[in-house]
């Protein structure tokens, strides 16, 4: 029993003497792994202590900084906790001991009760020992320990009879024994206590313990940091280093401590980091930042820097702790990734964009093609109808029939015009409208257009033209388009004017800004005229002027040139020619802005209609549309054309008083001599004796007086023409052009000037209207004569752009006076442009070809694409023809030089020489009877066939039918083919039907 108690006490004491959880708790604060942790550390050798510490500072920090004090407080707290734990344990043990003591005391009391006398004896040995009181004064809080004995209650069995001597003796002996045991126990307890006290004494002091812990933490920190690419430092409020840990130290302690970044390093990023630290210091908030250093010391490296402010107890910043980690590679990788991602995104965007573009282009191309094809398709049969009707009109008809026929013709022409308008529009819109830069004389153009209008005029109107003196005699621009615009505007004016006059005024203006043009308009129009400038004017202008310069390679140099000087320049033919010196040319070229007003005294335009005036398919009102007809495309085309050329088109109008359409266009003025770059022969054909030329060149005013137009259909025409002829100084009227005239007579579109047959005194040719072929393609006639004869303005022929440009290979006579020819072919009536000279390309009538048709016709295919050749050849074979093939335009010219053919099928786009040029060369030969132009182009006839023999073997008048094969794209327009002397065109891909029709038409 006694032993049991002893054991229990001992166990308890030992178990709770030094609890393990204290150490654990403490250790966990540093995440120290207890087992083996120290061993690990022991194995490590800290060869170098990279830490550089300003201990003084550290002390200060711990004393003064908040962090330091909190750290200290924490340590103290944990120590206190530990001590409290020890105290608790001691107390427990104390309790145990006191319990035991109580039990013993009780026991003792019983014994004393029973043996009073003995009690005195043993009582002296019993005393309280406070083991701790003396030795443990360090911890005054621990209450003095009460010492006591564990006394076991023990019943003493005595055998002897009670109250006998023996009994007492035995009893005394027993007691003796108990006492001895008790003493023994007391001794053991004493030993235990002493042992405990000893243990307590060996317990380390808190400071020792703390420093040990700190040391361990320090070791761990070193262990962790020894390979880390980090720099840890503390800087005071002047940003001087007080502590730095750097794994790759490049400086000694003295080099760093007490210095700032900027004092230590130089190079990129240092300043930034310094400023960043300063910012943290100022703000008192920790922050992170990536800074790229580029110092001579360690090259270009990026650091992720974390800076936190350090506060003193008063809450003031006293420095910063900073930690930097090198993240150069990561940053590089990240940037690479970013770039890659960006690239991928861009690529993807591009792809989608492109796909979209492809899709859109496809769609647009299809739509445009559709439109173009449709227009072509509609136009061909329609021109058939119209030409047939024209032919019919020359036959004997009674008056009613003639009237009906006239209506039919005018309707047909209207539809043709509409289709041409649509084609034009789609061309301009799709940007394939190419502008030509040709020399022309504005006065001529104005006069021609007015004359043309006058010729078809059915009202009592005066047409007048004013050209300011300073307008250059000759300018460069796309005369065809300008004529088209002018014609359109004038015909428009005529259409809406019932009395009074329609006029054109040309003047030179400074380069118009938008404001300038507005001012101009105001000046020109009366004060209450409403004005309307088309919106997006400037945009369109810039755009189109860009397009303009791109397409033509013409750089507009805005200049307010002196017209007088230009005039002089024009007259002076000493200037270098265009081809010779580009530089010189550019410097001598100037841009002049010519303003053209087309004014009328017509019905005017209501103000509310102005904004939509230039819109497609829009007319001033539905009433107008009914009353005046028209497509509503004319002005839209004008506007687009003007803008394409870099100008602007505006209108001012007052209802019931008239309208003025104004367009201002840039033209180049060149001092290049008139005929220097004109391969055209017509320039040589001017009649130098013609006195009127000089006066016309500089004429400033034209007027075409109104005529009395009694009947539109029958009797009026000759009169009208007489009138016209009178105006022009000619008095001959030719019957053969009547039907052409008539075809335009019932609408307001002006008749092209050149349609009027003009004679210079060879009436015999004209008086024979029934034999048109003879007069038109009379081989005896030399070119000069025919040019003279068929050009209304003899003086104009050499200089006028449109003529020189478009008819250089086709003598005018062939182009538009051969009325009978149109029987066999189509008349592409593009009256709206007022340049029939170019447009009406009649095909050769079969009769003319009679001699050739007896033999197997010879067909030449000019094509570079093998597959196309194969297909065409096969088709021709099925048609029963064999064909000869050459692969480019130059070969085609050679072939034509060598042999005679009945039909040429000419691809347009080919290497070496394209179909257009080849056609021009062939036409030039037909016209002049020599191959000079071809020789100039490097494809002269081979020496074997001299030009003379070629001339002999050919009938020069015979026009070789050349049919273009266009790719049906807008860029290879049929119009262009016709303009270059081709007879018609087939759009690719060639189909059997198309080819059959073509062959049948030309080979009969």
């Amino acid at each position: 029993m006694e032993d049991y108690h002893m054991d229990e006490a001992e166990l308890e004491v030992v178990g709770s003497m030094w609890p393990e959880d204290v150490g654990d708790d403490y250790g966990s604060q540093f995440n120290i792994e207890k087992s083996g942790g120290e061993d690990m550390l022991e194995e490590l050798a800290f060869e170098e202590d990279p830490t550089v510490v300003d201990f003084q500072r550290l002390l200060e920090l711990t004393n003064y900084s908040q962090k330091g004090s909190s750290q200290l407080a924490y340590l103290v707290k944990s120590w206190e906790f530990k001590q409290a734990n020890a105290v608790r344990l001691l107390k427990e043990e104390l309790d145990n001991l006191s319990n035991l003591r109580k039990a013993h005391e009780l026991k003792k009391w019983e014994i004393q009760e029973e043996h009073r006398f003995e009690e005195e004896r043993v009582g002296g040995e019993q005393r309280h020992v406070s083991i701790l009181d003396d030795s443990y004064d360090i911890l005054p809080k621990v209450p003095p320990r009460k010492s006591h004995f564990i006394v076991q209650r023990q019943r003493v069995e005595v055998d002897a009879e009670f109250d006998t001597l023996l009994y007492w003796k035995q009893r005394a002996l027993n007691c003796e024994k108990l006492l001895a045991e008790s003493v023994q126990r007391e001794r053991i307890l004493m030993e235990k206590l002493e042992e405990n006290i000893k243990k307590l004494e060996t317990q380390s002091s808190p400071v020792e313990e703390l420093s040990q812990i700190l040391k361990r933490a320090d070791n761990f920190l070193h262990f962790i940091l020894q390979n880390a690419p980090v720099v840890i430092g503390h800087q005071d409020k002047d940003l001087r280093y007080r502590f730095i840990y750097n794994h790759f130290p490049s400086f000694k302690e003295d080099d760093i401590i007490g210095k700032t970044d900027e004092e230590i390093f130089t190079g990129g990023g240092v300043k930034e980091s310094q400023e960043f630290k300063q910012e943290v210091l100022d703000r008192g908030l920790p922050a992170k930042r990536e800074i790229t250093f580029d110092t001579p010391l360690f090259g270009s490296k990026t650091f992720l820097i974390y800076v936190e402010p350090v506060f003193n107890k008063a809450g003031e910043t006293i420095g910063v702790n900073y930690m930097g980690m090198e993240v150069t590679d990561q940053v590089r990788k990240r940037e690479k990734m970013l770039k890659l991602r960006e690239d991928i995104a861009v690529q993807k965007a591009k792809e989608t964009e492109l796909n979209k573009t492809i899709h859109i282009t496809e769609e647009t191309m299809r739509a445009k093609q559709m439109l173009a094809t449709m227009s072509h398709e509609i136009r061909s049969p329609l021109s058939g109808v119209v030409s047939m009707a024209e032919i019919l009109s020359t036959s004997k008809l009674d008056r009613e029939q003639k009237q009906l026929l006239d209506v039919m013709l005018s309707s047909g022409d209207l539809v043709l015009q509409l289709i041409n308008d649509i084609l034009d529009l789609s061309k301009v819109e799709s940007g394939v409208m190419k502008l030509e830069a040709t020399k022309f004389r504005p006065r001529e153009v104005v006069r021609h257009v007015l004359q043309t209008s006058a010729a078809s005029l059915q009202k009592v109107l005066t047409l007048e033209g004013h050209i300011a003196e300073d307008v250059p005699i000759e300018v460069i621009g796309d005369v065809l388009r300008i004529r088209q615009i002018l014609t359109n505007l004038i015909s428009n004016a005529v259409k809406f004017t019932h009395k009074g006059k329609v006029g054109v005024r040309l003047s030179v203006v400074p380069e118009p800004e938008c404001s300038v043009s507005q001012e101009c308009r105001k000046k020109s129009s009366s004060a209450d005229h409403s004005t309307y400038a088309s919106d997006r004017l400037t945009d369109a202008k810039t755009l189109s002027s860009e397009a303009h310069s791109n397409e033509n390679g013409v750089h507009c140099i805005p200049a307010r040139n002196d017209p007088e000087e230009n005039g002089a320049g024009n007259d002076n033919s000493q200037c270098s020619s265009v081809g010779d010196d580009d530089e010189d040319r550019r410097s001598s070229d100037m841009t002049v802005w010519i303003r053209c007003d087309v004014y009328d005294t017509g019905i005017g335009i209501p103000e509310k209609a102005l904004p939509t005036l230039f819109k497609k398919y829009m007319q001033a009102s539905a009433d107008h549309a009914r009353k005046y007809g028209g497509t509503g495309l004319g002005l839209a085309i004008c506007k687009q054309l003007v803008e394409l050329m870099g100008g602007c088109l505006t209108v001012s109008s007052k209802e019931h008083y008239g309208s003025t359409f104004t367009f201002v266009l840039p033209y180049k003025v060149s001092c290049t001599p008139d005929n220097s770059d004109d391969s055209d022969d017509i320039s040589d054909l001017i009649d130098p004796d013609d006195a009127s030329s000089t006066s016309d060149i500089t004429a400033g005013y034209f007027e075409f007086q109104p005529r009395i137009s009694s009947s539109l259909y029958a009797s009026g025409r000759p009169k009208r023409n007489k009138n016209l002829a009178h105006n022009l100084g000619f008095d001959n009227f030719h019957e053969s052009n009547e039907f052409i005239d008539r075809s335009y007579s019932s609408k307001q579109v002006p008749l092209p000037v050149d349609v009027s047959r003009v004679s210079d005194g060879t009436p015999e040719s004209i008086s024979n209207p029934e034999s048109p072929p003879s007069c038109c393609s009379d081989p005896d006639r030399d070119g000069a004569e025919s040019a003279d004869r068929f050009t209304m303005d003899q003086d104009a022929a050499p200089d006028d752009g449109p003529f020189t440009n478009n008819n250089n290979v086709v003598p005018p006579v062939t182009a538009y006076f051969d009325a009978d020819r149109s029987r066999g072919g189509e008349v592409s009536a593009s009256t709206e442009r007022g340049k029939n000279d170019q447009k009406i390309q009649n095909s050769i009538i079969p009769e003319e070809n009679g001699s050739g048709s007896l033999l197997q016709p010879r067909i030449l295919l000019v094509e570079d694409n093998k597959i196309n050749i194969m297909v065409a050849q096969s088709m021709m074979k099925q048609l029963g023809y064999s064909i000869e093939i050459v692969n480019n335009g130059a070969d085609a010219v050679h072939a034509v030089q060598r042999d005679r053919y009945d039909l040429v099928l000419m691809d347009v786009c080919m290497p070496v020489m394209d179909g257009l040029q080849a056609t021009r060369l062939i036409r030039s030969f037909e016209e002049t009877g020599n191959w000079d132009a071809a020789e100039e182009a490097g494809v002269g006839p081979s020496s074997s066939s001299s030009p003379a023999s070629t001339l002999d073997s050919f009938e020069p008048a015979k026009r070789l039918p050349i049919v273009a094969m266009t790719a049906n794209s807008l860029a290879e327009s049929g119009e262009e083919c016709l303009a270059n002397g081709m007879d018609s065109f087939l759009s690719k891909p060639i189909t059997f039907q198309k080819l059959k029709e073509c062959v049948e038409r030309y080979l009969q």
Partner: protein
Amino acid sequence: MDGVVLQLQRKLIDYTNSLFHEGYINEQFSQLQQLQDESNPNFVMEVVSLFFQDSERLLNELGKALGQPVIDFKKVDSHVHQLKGSSSSIGAQKVQNVCMTFRSCCEQQNADGCLTCLQVLSSEYFLVKNKLETLFKIEQQFMAAGGSFPM
């Protein structure tokens, strides 16, 4: 005509129609087919083979031209023009369409666009080549089984 021939004929017609329907070829191809007769029994195949040869050469040339550091867009354009011409002649609609886009890219001197177009172009070309070759195979089977044109 026995069953096999009829079956093959059906297959041929279906396949041809599907090609038309899916837009690989257009009426121009029928033009070619119409040109084929006893005197010229393999006309379509001959033309199309020529087209294949020519196209592959042009695609090669295009690849080379677009691989140059400085792209000669004129040259590229002329190649594409050729390809467009031949594809339109045999009625390879899709190839022709891509050619149009390609040419507009050339016009804008858009090198990236041209490269993408070339990719699209090659894929369209090989697609149509595949289709046409299949067509010819069926046609040959049809002929071998005793069928004859015109069907």
